[in-house]
């Protein structure tokens, strides 16, 4: 596998609290794969949403500041939370391409950043920098027979010309990852539909409905577990299963795991280090039944 560089790492607020399991497993897995996530010093909130208003750049300053500081530390920045990734990558691209806004932003943050950082999602590192075949070789306990539905959500895929993550309508990267783990990917139409995002704060019932449709579609297509990359999505499709159950009485729970939890498990990490206690729907019975733990 050769020596692989270390990556600057922006965890984001949620990974320090509600999604520690995502953060921890990612860090541990990277060590097993031969690279380190070098956490940015003094990082701040990314803004949690890419500002869509074009007449005001204030909301662009936090992610710009993160980028500018990261550039002082290195050349490649990675993150896990899909929303943080979306905000940071889009901001980076805007600074790269919009000279006028770049100048304004630099004036505000009193730094000089040109947008020359590579911003990669952790999954992209796995695919592009390390390679799924190589990861497959590292798999100690293949997740044979695990029917896993890869849920992409929105922020990795859209807008396509800015994110360039995968085909926006028929993405396959996540499934390729699951295959490398030895799992059986389950294709389901709702894998690119929205989880309701921040509507869990504004109109929780709408987010409940979104989550119900996504999970229902995954279950109908034979999934035993849904795999996610994003703490926002995970909240809406995992933690909100209690709300879903309240509304749809015949709804049967389904575990939702972070992709790094699967990765760790497949690479032989002790399941007790994988933070399953933070998952709302307990995956342990399923994982035991499957003989993975």
């Amino acid at each position, binding site marked *: 596998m050769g020596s692989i560089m270390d990556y600057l790492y922006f965890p984001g607020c949620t990974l320090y609290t509600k999604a520690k399991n995502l953060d921890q497993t990612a860090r541990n897995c990277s060590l097993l794969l031969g690279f380190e996530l070098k956490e940015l010093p003094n990082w701040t909130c990314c803004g949690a949403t890419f500002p869509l208003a074009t007449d005001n750049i204030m909301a662009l300053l936090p992610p710009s500041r993160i980028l500018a500081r990261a550039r002082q530390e290195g050349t490649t920045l990675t993150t896990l939370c899909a929303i943080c990734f979306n905000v940071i990558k889009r901001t980076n691209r805007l600074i790269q391409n919009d000279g006028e806004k770049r100048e304004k932003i630099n004036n505000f943050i009193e730094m000089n950043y040109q947008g020359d950082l590579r911003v990669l999602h952790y999954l992209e590192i796995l695919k592009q920098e390390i390679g799924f075949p190589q990861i497959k070789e590292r798999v100690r306990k293949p997740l044979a027979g695990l029917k896993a539905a890869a849920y992409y959500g929105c922020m990795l895929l859209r807008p396509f010309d800015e994110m360039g993550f995968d*085909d*926006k*309508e*028929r993405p396959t990267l996540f499934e390729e990852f699951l295959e490398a783990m030895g799992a059986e990917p389950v*294709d389901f*139409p709702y894998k690119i539909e929205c989880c309701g995002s921040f509507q869990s704060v504004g109109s929780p019932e709408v987010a409940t409905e979104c989550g119900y449709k996504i999970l229902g*579609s995954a279950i*109908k297509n034979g999934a035993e577990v849904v795999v996610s990359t994003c703490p926002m999505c995970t909240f809406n499709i995992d933690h909100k299963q209690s709300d879903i159950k309240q509304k749809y009485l015949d709804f049967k729970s389904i575990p939702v795991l972070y992709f790094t939890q699967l990765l760790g498990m497949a690479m032989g990490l002790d399941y007790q280090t994988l933070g399953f206690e933070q998952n709302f729907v307990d995956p342990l019975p399923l994982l035991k039944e499957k003989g993975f733990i």
Partner: protein
Amino acid sequence: MKENGKFIKRAMVIGGGIAGISASIDIGNAGYDVVLVEKLPSIGGRMLQLSETFPTLDCAQCTLTPKTVETGQHPHIKLLTYSEVDRVEGKAGNFTVKIRRKAAYVDWEKCTGCGLCQEKCPSKKPSEFDRGMGMGKAIYTLSPQAVPNKPVINPSNCRYFLEKKCRVCEKVCPVGAIDYEQQDRFVEERVGAIITAVGIDLIPKETFGEYGYGTIPDVIDGLAFERLNSASGPTTGAIRRPSDGKVPKEVVFIQCTGSRDPERYMPYCSRVCCMYTAKHARLYKHKVHDGQAYIFYMDIRSTGKGYEEFIQQGMEEEGILYLRGRVSRIFRDDGRVVVWGVDTLTGKKVEISADMVVLATAIIPQGGTKGLAQKLGINTDEYGFFTEAERKLRPVETNVEGIYLAGCAQGPKDIADAVAHANGAASKVQGLFAKH
């Protein structure tokens, strides 16, 4: 300009679809010799794939075959099928065109067109002519009514070429016409004028990720529906969905798929989809009386003679439901094809759980049009359609004297307009010849 004596009053027509055929017959009937070059093994073009044509619902074969037969038998028309233009030199009155005659692996001089080879050929692959709706053999003619009625071997499907075994066709051929060693050959033709009528293709339905989650077999395109509906097609005209052969009871037709979409696909209107979709829906209703046809549209464009009446009749008499709006997404769920669309007239999102979806995909120029334009020294627009000399008053002429345009290669048109355009080009050729 050439002197009178040397001006060659003989024309070449490139493309043997309805436009090329119409132009050839016109020029031939005026007493001039014509060389008709077609890249497929037989003439007829896209129209050969159609079932019935709007607005009269005449069967396409019935309108077309007399013309293909007439072309094949015309004393002034020389057919060069399975051939492509390789190089063009010279100018009006004296073009020298080098033509590649592709290896058919069948000696057409000997072949009697008995069809035994096709019948016995053991190789079956999805047929391109049938848009994947049916199977085709490695040795084939495009249709039983092909002109000329001579088969060719497709080496990429033929077991002999792939695995060096089989040779069934050779064994069964009563006249020993199979020739696996045949090579492409080149011929030269000298002509005084050239008409290009190379026709169209459809933008592949696979282009539309959002419309074919994975690849849904029951999402087909308009030409595939024509094949399904065609009496000479793979289902002998029965409307059956590709996935399981069931009769679809709810069929959704989606217009403007890839057309009028400047951001993602083609900005132009493909001109024929509104009418053929209306026709499809009506023909579907004729065969599946208890079925429901839904048509998503943006604007209904029925501008030809009798077209508006045809559309309105479809709505009134066949109960076809028109929904004004685009479809955002199609995916498969529980063996059904789920369509997410909108009816902008009620402002409501519409979800239809359909049995089959037919996409009226955008018309694009035939592959290789730009290359041909370069050989001829004429222009194309950014999409590859040939550019006419002037849009209004010189719609069939090009920037090069002696080279003319016919049919959809200049821009999407329906059959009637394509034929008129082609006849117009023929008129210009006759005028050019008469002057010299």
